[in-house]
């Protein structure tokens, strides 16, 4: 039974992955292809591109990203809880309220520290 599920999932996923790749290469069969140096150039508003885009790019939101990882893992903990809470009852509810309390304290701490700002140390 379990094997059938995975076989079916793998089959479906393989088809879902193959369909777009086939679609990309269909035009290659019958469309004209005239390569030119300028046509293959990167688009930059009609100018000759200035340098490359493989640069060290400042993503301003890295504190958000760090917090996202932490909180997302915590959210993952809630899935098993959501399934069994009806069986365990009030004890599970109290535990989860404590857990959400920890969540909120963490969020308030990050908020007051200014981690929830697009650019840190910059006046709003």
């Amino acid at each position, binding site marked *: 039974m379990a094997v059938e*599920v995975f076989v079916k999932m793998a089959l479906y996923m393989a088809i*879902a*992955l193959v369909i777009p790749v086939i679609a990309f290469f269909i035009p290659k069969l019958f469309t004209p292809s005239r390569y030119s140096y300028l046509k293959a*150039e990167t688009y930059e508003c009609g100018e000759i591109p200035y340098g490359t885009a493989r640069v060290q790019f400042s993503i301003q939101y890295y504190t958000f990203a760090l917090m996202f990882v932490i909180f997302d893992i915590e959210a993952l903990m809630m899935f098993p809880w959501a*399934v069994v809470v009806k069986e365990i009852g009030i004890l599970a509810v109290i535990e989860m309220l404590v857990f959400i309390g920890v969540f909120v304290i963490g969020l308030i701490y990050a908020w007051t520290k200014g981690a929830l700002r697009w650019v840190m140390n910059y006046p709003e």
Partner: protein
Amino acid sequence: MSWYESPILQPVYVKAMEVLGPIIGRTGAQLLLSLIESILIIALIFINVLIIVWLERKILGRMMNRRGPVYAGPPLLWGLFQAIADFLKLMTKEFFIPRRADRLTYIIGPALVVFAGLAIGLMVPFGEGFVGLKNEASLIYIIALASLEPMGVMLCGLSANNKFSLMGGMRAAAQMISYELPAVLVLISAALLAGSVDILEIAESQSQIWYVAILPLGALLYLITVLAELERTPFDIPEAESELVAGFMTEYGGMFYGMLMAAHYISVFVTSALFVAVFLGGYGLPFGLNAALEMLPPALASLTTLLIFHVKVYIVVFLLIWIRAAYFRFRIDQLLELGWKRLFPLSLLNLVWAIAALGVLS
């Protein structure tokens, strides 16, 4: 569980097994039928994509007081074939990869975006029996694949070696970290009420009352996160056409562009379907009216549930198009702050609300 368990396809399945079984063996026949079923699911999704593309152009046109697509297609449904015409036009465009782009990731990026949207369709309950695969953890499968899509968008942005693409891809990542946490928490609150993380059981547990009535705040929050997840108008930041040319799609043309657009509408359909399944009762009717469906012949009842599901999905799609016609675009830092300072605390509140609702209901 598969589509072959629906009363319509059940006889077909039995007959096919009888005919094919002796020729290629039982396992071979099952594999072949699963293959056909996968193609059926993907075909259903693509038909809906064509309809949604047309609907969006037509409704947006009407809302802007112009006529939208008019000529392509049969009389009385003018413009219905506009999407097919667009698709055929994109088919005839040159296959082309920019010289500076990284060739492998340039192809993998859009393929991953399309794959993520299509793969979700396997576990979405489209109607009674029309579930590709029933699984105890299908909600987790769906969340995992839904967050794979921004990865594909990021790959598109990074591979093209274009500054606009790079910014678009980075913005897609920023968008994901701002909406995903509220979305997951809202889905947990629905799973809590149903006592299951199976999307089918969540849908079926709403036979008396839809969760949109129990969790109005959750439904609203989820609608907002859906808009962010789909990169649609209040949050169409990664492709912001007035700032970033076309964002992560700048360097894509021809069929690549066509598949990226298709992927967007696949996501629109699948995510609306998810919204329907979680908050609007899936393919069923509220207040125990499903009993009325059982009086019909099984095949007809199954088709009716399929129809009900699609009606609900198109109501959600209409809402999304309406929002696109009515609203402006957020700035990226505004979206991040909206996600973390408003949606996240509210989704925790919604979770506490769901716990209280569970206490009251049971």
